[in-house]
């Protein structure tokens, strides 16, 4: 597997990482090595095998859809972790230009 710099850049963009040129080169090379090793999975016969996403054996777990108030101090402390708050709400930059 070969990865062009453009492809690595595209992956970084999807991952919301602003990588430097050096990082793009390094990760490009390392991804190539790692995916080269992962090719080993081609040896395994997977005909008719179902995929496993989780091992609990559980299907949907339901609960009543009701609002539970969060303890006041914890709520206040959680909000204060945000870099910018206004009127008890987290402020973000403009989304639409």
């Amino acid at each position, binding site marked *: 597997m070969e990865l062009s710099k453009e492809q690595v850049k595209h992956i970084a963009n999807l991952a919301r990482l602003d990588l430097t040129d050096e990082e793009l080169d390094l990760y490009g090379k390392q*991804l190539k090595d790692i995916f080269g090793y992962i090719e*080993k999975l081609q040896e395994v016969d997977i005909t008719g095998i179902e*995929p496993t996403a989780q091992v609990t054996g559980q299907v949907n777990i339901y609960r009543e859809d009701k609002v539970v108030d969060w303890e006041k101090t914890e709520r206040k402390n959680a909000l204060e972790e945000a870099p910018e708050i206004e009127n008890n709400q987290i402020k973000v930059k403009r989304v639409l230009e």
Partner: protein
Amino acid sequence: MKINELTIKQAQEKLEKEEFNSVELTKACLERISEVDQKIKACLTVCEGEALAFAEEADLRRRKGEKGKLLGIPFLVKDNIMTRGIRSTGGSRILENYIAPYDATIIKKLKDAGAVLLGKANLDEFGHGASGENSAYGPTHNPWDLERVSGGSSSGPVAAVSADMCIFALGTDTGGSIRCPASFCNVVGLKPSYGRSSRFGLMSMTSSTDVPGPITKTVEDAAMVLEVIAGKDERDPTTGNVEVQNYLDNINKDIKGLKIGIPEDYLKEASEDIIKIINEAKGNFEKSGMKIIPVKLPHAKYGIPVYYIITPSEISSNLARYDGIRYGYRDEEASSLLGIYTKSRDKGFGSEVKRRIMIGTYALSAGYYDAYYLRAQKVRTKIIKELDQEFEKVDLIIVPTQPDVAYKIGEQSDDPLKMYLEDIFLSPASLAGLPAISIPAGFVNNLPVGMQLIGKKFDEDMLFRVGNFFQKITDFHTKKPNI
């Protein structure tokens, strides 16, 4: 013997007899931390004031007649577990100043039981690593040889137990993160069955394999901690609706006639010294009346490539939450919303975290999903079925924890692939959600070697029973590093 060197069981008996109180025991641990941790670097945050307050409260509860296995026992916690009002960094720069607003369920349970929280312990950033070297705050040094890695990702909690900075610790295990360092540092590390202990309040890494568990000085202590932290949690719907046993009830039961599975072919992935140690243990079990049954796990070796697709994929999704908006580091120079995301993440994350996010993003991206992620999920099924099938013949399976002893710091850190290959004996139990415990089993050149016992799902009881028996006939676990 200093009191910080005691096991939970020993300390509990002495607390009961009033030979010392929890404040004294807590102070002994805090003193040990200040004595040795500059060299080991196991702790990221030590909360002396809070710890002494917890200890005083525990002493008060005891005076009022309360009893409890963990009442007044000091412990350390891996820093990817949320602890209310205390800095919780996950070993990452992106959460350098993050104060957890609430307690993880397992922390709440330990506090209710009267255990004394001493502080937060080092780890590979967000649990991404097998050596402890990926912490943004520097590597943890192995107490047995300070030039060597402690193993990871639960590097700090394990090194701290090994060097007697606490009586026990909590870690998390996603693909070996409790077992690997336990093997390198001569302590007991249990990865419970997936869903046995709640993940609520853990910094999610790989949601389909993450599980918190105890790191202790004996198997008996691990049973005592699991009993407190295990159980169904409505805040984590993946926790199993399975009864939590009183694990000490069966721990001394006779082991004669129990069947141990040994996969000879798989064992060859370990170095000769390690195989020798496993064979000695096997001989001891056989002499004690257990039956050794050959088992075959030809797909276990695919655990690594499966793990390194599934894990980064889940990571790339789980770590999307660190975006500089609701908490954590924000790059103040960014002028746009997108810029806040990309620049905060680039500056806040270390290289292994970025590498895993990149691998996962690629594996899940359009055009590659079937070839990588879906295929890995199918091979995961094969690994699970193979284990299920072999477990019809045996009560537990024994393999090494690590293919070799702890390596030198810096020796492998330039080659991520080589590092991933260290997980050869660890991934299968994680992918299948089975309980597995690493127990001290010998030494190679004065460096510890762990043996791994893998059990049937939710059958931690069997691991404790056989592990405890092994600790009655051997004394490896009583050996301490010279520090």
